[in-house]
């Protein structure tokens, strides 16, 4: 009798029957043919004839398939036979994903852990990337912004302090404009707070910019309405012309041609800037003309006050421009040898870098940190998936036996990891929104971004890329691992012997070690920042910031023409403040430490030869102060006396210097000596009467600059007039409580004087360390997560190891092994891994944290305490991670373990 199935099966092949249904039909029809054959034989036919006749029941053209084609069963969806080789890529992919979803649903604990850690890793990367993209990657919002440069001078003497980027002087600005043809245009600008009188007479302190006439040309921006002032109009002595910001023009409804009052002087509005125009600070409300003083005097050439920007000529590179700027040095040396003797160059820096400034390093550090976190998350998952793969080895072997090939199995496993990554990515984006909001809220400064910082398409694209890479990386290695051994062997193994293979243990150990090493690097970075921040907090700033309220007041010439009268008004305000109930004392200073710089001024020490040309000049900050200021701010007297109420106009000119300045006398006693400012011929002698403690006025991480304090009551040297002073009010209670009465006191003297920057000194001190605090905080957060994940990874492998070896442990215990011995075995295992992790992590950390050098102060990147602490923390957490598995191991009951056999 022939094999009927051979005749039936091909006729069904055009249909998409499920394999089970097909088998049924083949069986049924074969049965039919067999019955027919037997009947024909019984009827006297020969076997061959019977076969022929039976098969003749089938028509020539395959009617069976045709009649069955409309039936539902002929269109069964492709069964999910995971790993079965197929040709269609996309339907296969879909099938892989569906199968993956089913597998993940079966293991909710694993899936939730995996998805959440991935979400954390991907989400934090998306958030930090969004900030980095907005600040560092996006071009400036000006046409051809790559052509924009900041122009500076550079002064790096072989000894003494230098300046990498220093403002230009008026004559230098003029030289560059005349002699450097690489620039299509060059302009200077400066920020200035000024009193703006509103229509209702209310006076507000607003941020303004003074700019030269080419400023907007350089940026490539035109006023929205009206026009820019011309070079002639910008000259000194011309009437004041102003451009308003879009918002200011809307609010004040100041029409073009109308007059506003700026510092109590009239100023004609000639233009309005476009909405959203921001250059460096979005608070600027008014732009007025900046006059470049090109007068060729020694003082003017040395007065570096012009911050300049330039636009490159079309087709000229920044290098060419730099070369031209550099060559200017030859000309300067020839014309002004005294001034430029020891290296004093003009240089440029891309404007984007100028604007981003020192925020770049902190952001990149955080970017690196979150990448490490993601890496640890991936390594963690890879390790988890490897043990998973081991547990599923029999499943793969069965599929392999059913015809799946290895490539398809690998794809299946990668699809599972990819699905995890996709879900993790989706949750990650939601998380990123929250993280981003938190980051922006915590960020201590204005981020130099010119668009709202939100998760945009670029961040989504980046996230997608992360998801794909993470999914692939996490899935691929475990897939290779799980499908690597000869499958048939696995089939033959019984479930008890199918434990974690030696190779998988090795692979997981390597992963756990790399996780530990990565977390060591992050932890070392975070600890270095924490220690550096602690050091900063411990630094003696030289002032006592508690219980101090500060604010500043400016009396412009438009309000009081006579500078001496303005100073008297300020003194009167100080007296009133000092007499206010709850106030201990009140003083005033021209430049408050940590809030504003103060102009460095060169002077000569009488009776000593001036420094040779090119050597650093005797130079100190020129600070005008009232006698009470020292007590109000808590600046300590070291020797001699402080400024006194009797140091007024008509009395001998006196000054108090800080300890850093005192060192200029190189060992001699400066008290009683005199100094003289430039120009020496006309400047009076000033006698040093006292030495006060240094104040870290730039920040805790910077050394105290030299400073000279002169009494406000003695007419300051030109061009200073002492119209702008910061009041320092030391209170008995909470300084914020005094704010209202301080306002009232000022108003009682002059209602038209706005108070600006009302802040407590503690706030200013806190804000000054805001950046390191932020970086330290965020870095510690991510390092903590990394460390936790690494510890969990270690725990995971140890716990799994114990679980797999329950029988072995049972045997050992049955044979009389000491439980303490077993405990030690497991703990030792964990410690060994931790030590290897530390051995790899510490040198890597030493190498990588070198990059953080610029962000550390008070500690070096090789700080031994940090590394001892990191290794200590690693070992302690390894101990904790090993403890639970070790305890589990000692509780293995040999009877139970062996009976499970």
């Amino acid at each position, binding site marked *: 009798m022939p094999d009927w199935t051979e005749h039936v099966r091909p006729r069904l092949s055009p249909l998409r029957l499920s394999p089970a249904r097909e088998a049924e039909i083949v069986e049924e029809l074969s049965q039919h043919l067999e019955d*027919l054959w037997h009947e024909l034989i019984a009827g006297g036919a020969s076997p061959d004839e019977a076969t022929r006749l039976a098969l003749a029941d089938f028509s020539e053209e395959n009617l069976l398939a045709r*009649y069955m084609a409309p039936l539902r069963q002929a269109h069964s969806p492709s069964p999910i036979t995971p790993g079965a080789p197929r040709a269609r890529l996309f339907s296969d992919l879909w099938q892989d994903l569906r199968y993956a979803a089913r597998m993940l649903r079966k293991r909710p604990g694993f899936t939730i852990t995996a998805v959440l850690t991935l979400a954390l890793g991907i989400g934090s990367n998306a958030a930090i990337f969004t900030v980095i993209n907005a600040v560092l990657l996006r071009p400036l919002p000006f046409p051809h912004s790559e052509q924009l440069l900041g122009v500076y001078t550079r002064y790096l003497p072989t000894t003494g302090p230098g300046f990498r980027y220093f403002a230009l002087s008026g004559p230098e600005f003029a030289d560059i404009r005349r002699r450097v043809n690489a620039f299509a245009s060059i302009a200077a600008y400066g920020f200035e707070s000024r009193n703006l009188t509103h229509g209702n007479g209310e006076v507000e302190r607003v941020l303004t910019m003074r700019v030269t006439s080419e400023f907007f040309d350089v940026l490539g921006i035109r006023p929205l309405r009206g026009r820019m002032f011309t070079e002639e109009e910008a000259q000194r002595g011309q009437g004041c012309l102003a451009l308003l910001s879009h918002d200011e023009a809307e609010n004040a409804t100041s029409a073009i041609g109308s007059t506003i009052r700026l510092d109590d002087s009239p100023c004609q509005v000639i233009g309005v800037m476009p909405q959203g125009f921001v250059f460096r600070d979005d608070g600027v409300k008014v732009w007025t003309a900046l006059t470049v003083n090109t007068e060729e005097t020694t003082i003017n050439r040395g007065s570096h006050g012009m911050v300049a920007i330039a636009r490159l000529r079309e087709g000229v590179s920044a290098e060419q421009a730099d070369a031209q700027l550099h060559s200017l040095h030859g000309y300067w040396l020839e014309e002004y040898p005294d001034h430029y003797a020891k290296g004093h160059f003009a240089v440029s820096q891309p404007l984007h870098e100028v604007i981003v400034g020192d925020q770049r390093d902190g952001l990149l550090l955080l970017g690196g940190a979150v990448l490490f976190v993601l890496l640890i998350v991936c390594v963690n998952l890879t390790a988890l998936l490897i043990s998973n793969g081991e547990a599923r080895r029999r499943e793969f072997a069965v599929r392999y036996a059913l015809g799946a090939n290895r490539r398809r199995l690998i794809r299946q496993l990668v699809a599972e990891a990819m699905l995890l990554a996709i879900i993790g990515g989706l949750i990650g984006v939601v998380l990123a929104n929250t993280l981003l909001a938190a980051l922006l809220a915590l960020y201590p400064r204005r981020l130099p971004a010119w668009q709202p910082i939100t998760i945009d398409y670029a961040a989504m694209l980046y996230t997608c890329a992360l998801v794909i890479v993470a999914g692939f990386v996490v899935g691929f290695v475990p897939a290779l691992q799980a499908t690597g051994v000869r499958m048939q062997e696995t089939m033959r193994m019984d479930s008890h012997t199918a434990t974690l293979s030696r190779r998988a243990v090795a692979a997981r150990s390597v992963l756990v070690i790399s996780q530990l090493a990565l977390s060591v690097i992050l932890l070392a970075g975070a600890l270095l920042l924490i220690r550096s921040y602690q050091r900063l907090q411990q630094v003696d700033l030289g002032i006592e910031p508690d219980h101090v309220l500060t604010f500043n007041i400016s009396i412009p010439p438009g309000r009081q023409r006579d500078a001496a009268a303005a100073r008297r008004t300020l003194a009167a305000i100080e007296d009133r403040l000092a007499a206010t109930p709850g106030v201990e004392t009140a003083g005033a200073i021209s430049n408050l430490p940590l809030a504003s710089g103060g102009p460095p001024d060169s002077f000569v020490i009488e009776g000593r030869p001036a420094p040779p040309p090119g050597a650093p000049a005797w130079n100190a900050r020129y600070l005008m102060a009232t006698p009470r200021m020292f007590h109000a701010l808590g600046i300590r007297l070291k020797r001699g006396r402080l400024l006194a109420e009797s140091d007024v106009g008509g009395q001998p000119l006196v000054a108090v210097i800080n300890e850093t300045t005192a060192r200029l006398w190189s060992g001699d006693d400066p008290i009683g000596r005199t100094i003289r400012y430039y120009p020496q011929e006309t400047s009076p002698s000033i006698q040093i009467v006292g030495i006060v403690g240094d104040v870290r006025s730039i920040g805790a991480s910077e050394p105290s600059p030299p400073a000279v304090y002169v009494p406000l009551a003695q007419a300051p040297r030109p061009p200073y007039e002492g119209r702008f002073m910061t009041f320092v009010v030391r209170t008995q209670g909470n300084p914020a409580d005094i704010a209202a009465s301080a306002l009232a006191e000022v108003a009682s003297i002059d209602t038209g004087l706005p108070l600006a920057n009302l802040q407590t000194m503690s706030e200013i001190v806190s804000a000054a360390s805001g950046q390191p605090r932020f970086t330290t905080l965020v870095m510690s957060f991510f390092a903590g997560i990394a460390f936790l994940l690494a510890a969990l990874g270690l725990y995971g492998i140890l716990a799994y190891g114990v679980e797999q070896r329950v029988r072995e442990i049972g045997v050992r215990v049955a044979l009389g092994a000491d439980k303490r011995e077993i405990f030690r075995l497991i703990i030792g295992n964990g410690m060994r891994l931790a030590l290897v992790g530390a051995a790899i992590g510490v040198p890597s950390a030493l190498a990588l944290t070198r990059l953080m050098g610029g962000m550390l102060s008070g500690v070096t990147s090789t700080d031994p305490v940090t590394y001892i602490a990191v290794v200590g923390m690693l070992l302690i957490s390894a101990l904790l991670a090993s403890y639970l598995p070790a305890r589990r191991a000692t509780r293995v009951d040999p009877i139970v373990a062996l009976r499970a056999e």
Partner: protein
Amino acid sequence: MTDINTRALDRELKRGTAELLILSLLDARPRHGYELSKLIHTRSGGQLTFHIDSLYPLLYRLEERGWIKGTWVERPDERRRRFYKVTPQGRRVLAQQRKTWAAFVDAVQRITGDEHA
């Protein structure tokens, strides 16, 4: 009557008569496919033959509609066979079809009978 072209009959399967035949035969008791084809052949006096490639698609169609149901039945010393029986829904359909058929035959006979009369 002349011999009916069996392939032409196959085309009739798309219409209702073949369904009626199957349902009627299964109404009495469950039968397997080969038995059905034998019965149709013998009871029609050799006039009607269901080929294998039209009979089974028809059975499967009826089964998909829920009018009949096939089950594998194993008997000692015999290969298992698939027996079909009419479902309650199939019985309702059969009753309806029988009525329609009777009416149709009646109508046809009246016309053809008149001619012969």
